[in-house]
Each structure stands twice: as structure tokens, then as C-alpha cells.
């Protein structure tokens, strides 16, 4: 297995940052840089352990080359590639992923469809729910804007609730897993909390709809 520079360098910098933090703490000074670096290091470490990183590293340059050959930009390639990875992730979590070849081949094929659809082609290919191109008429834009604003308000008032609902509906976690992840005493308590969160979202939706009428 190849050892990348980061594998050795990052822990070394982290150790130096921790050491210097305590040195400065003992001497009465405490530059915020060291806390920030430690936090950033932990976030980076988490991303390095992300199971998608290998698939990303291995597939994206191939897709980017294909998009370039067809006259697209790096940003367009990245957007279509992220849509394809999302489809892959969602199907895998829902247990509906049917791979006839490798994950890389699946993601490259799907990314190509996403990119062509973004350019107005490949319209006969069915993408998962919610990945259809958003209509351009005013009514659709209004609905889109209302939903975005509602979501912003829900996240502001209760990100933990949205995380819990995401774990249940999107990640298909069991109530036992949710209880453990969110620190509830058991599945019953997690079920009640999930209901309360759902009810909160429903109430907010109803109040926005009543206000809009």
C-alpha cells in the first residue's frame, strides 16, 4: 500500500500543534491558531476515512477528462460527478443498487448521463426522485424558493431534529442505531423523538401554507 505524504505529515503537524498549545497554555499565552488547527485536523482526518474518498480519487479524473473532451468545464464536471455520487450513495443505502460492473463504471456512466441532461440531452433516461431538472416557469421557481426558505428556518430552529429525520428517512438507520447515535435511552425514546421532530416540521409546513393562502 502506498504511503502518501499526508499520512506522515498530518499527524506530525498535529503533534507539534498540541505540544505548542500546551507549552503556550503553561506559559499563560494561548494562541487560537492551535485550537483551530487541531479542529481542522480532526475534520480532515474524518474526511480521509470517508468510504467515498477512494471512489472519488479513482473516478473523477477519468470523468473530468471525458467532460473536457466534450467541451465542458471543471465546475460542470464536478457538479455532474457529485450528482452521480449522490445517486450511488442513495441507492446503496436503500439497498437498491444493482451493479453489473464496478462502482467506478457505475458512477462514470451515471455522471455522463447527469452531465448530458444538464446540457439538454439524454432526457429519456430516468433519474431518481428529486434529481429531475427544475422547471423554469414562475410557479416552479416560487415553490422552490418557498421550500428553500422553509428549510432554512427549520435548520435554524432545530438542526438536531433535521439530522435525526435524515438518519431515519435518508440513511435508513434503524431506531436502535438512531438511539445510539443521538444518545437516547433506547428505540422507544428514539421513536418518540423522531415523531416529535416530524410533528414540528409538519406544523411549520402548515403554518407557512396557511400564511401563503
Amino acid at each position: 500500500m502506498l504511503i502518501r505524504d499526508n499520512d506522515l505529515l498530518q499527524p506530525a503537524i498535529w503533534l507539534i500543534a498540541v505540544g505548542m498549545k500546551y507549552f503556550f497554555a503553561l506559559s499563560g499565552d494561548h494562541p487560537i491558531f492551535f485550537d483551530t488547527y487541531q479542529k481542522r485536523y480532526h475534520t480532515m482526518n474524518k474526511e480521509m476515512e470517508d468510504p467515498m474518498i477512494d471512489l472519488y480519487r479513482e473516478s473523477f479524473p477519468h470523468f473530468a477528462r471525458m467532460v473536457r473532451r466534450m467541451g465542458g468545464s471543471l465546475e460542470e464536471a464536478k457538479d455532474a460527478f457529485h450528482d452521480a455520487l449522490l445517486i450511488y450513495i442513495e441507492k446503496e443505502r436503500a439497498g437498491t443498487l444493482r451493479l453489473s460492473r464496478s462502482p467506478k463504471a457505475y458512477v462514470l456512466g451515471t455522471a455522463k448521463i447527469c452531465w448530458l441532461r444538464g446540457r439538454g440531452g439524454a432526457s429519456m433516461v430516468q433519474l431518481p426522485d428529486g434529481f429531475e431538472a427544475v422547471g423554469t416557469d414562475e410557479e416552479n421557481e416560487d415553490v422552490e424558493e418557498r421550500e428553500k426558505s422553509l428549510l432554512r428556518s427549520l435548520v435554524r430552529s432545530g438542526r438536531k431534529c433535521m439530522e435525526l429525520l435524515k438518519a431515519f428517512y435518508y440513511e435508513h438507520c434503524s431506531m436502535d442505531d438512531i438511539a445510539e447515535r443521538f444518545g437516547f435511552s433506547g428505540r422507544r425514546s428514539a421513536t418518540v423523538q423522531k415523531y416529535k421532530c416530524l410533528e414540528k416540521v409538519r406544523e411549520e409546513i402548515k403554518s407557512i401554507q396557511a400564511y401563503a393562502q
Partner: protein
Amino acid sequence: MRSELNEAGLIDEWLLGRMGDEDGRHFEARLLTDEAFAEKVEAQRMAHRLVRRYARTEEKGRLERIYRLLLHEPDFANQLNTIFT
């Protein structure tokens, strides 16, 4: 609380297409005759949509972080530079 909780669970089952035929027919009959219930179902349908939108935004943030992290790897960054210059 228990009956409300069960009702929300039933609505989930129906919205996610996991309800059996017989129960589904009862559910749909109630949708036609009980306006308050129909409103709840619509709100829950929209709640599902909002959760999905939230989740996708979060997941895209996660993918963006992976991309930025990979740009620190010389091999990966060089490949992209070569392709787009």
C-alpha cells in the same frame, strides 16, 4: 401520543409505498373522506421532501470537502491541472 405516533407511522408506510393492498385501500378511502387527515398526509409528504433536500445539501457539502481534500494530493491535483490547461 401513541395513536398520533401510530398514525404518523402509517402515513410513512403509505408515502414510502410499503403499505399492503388492503390497508392501502382503507387509507385512500380515508384520504377522500377526512380532510384534516388529508392535510396531515400532504404536510408529511412535504416533510419527506424537505428532509431529502436537507440531506442532499449536507451530502453535497461532504463531497465538496472530499474534493478540496483531494486537491492537496499532488497526483490528483496534477491530473486535473493537465486536463484543464
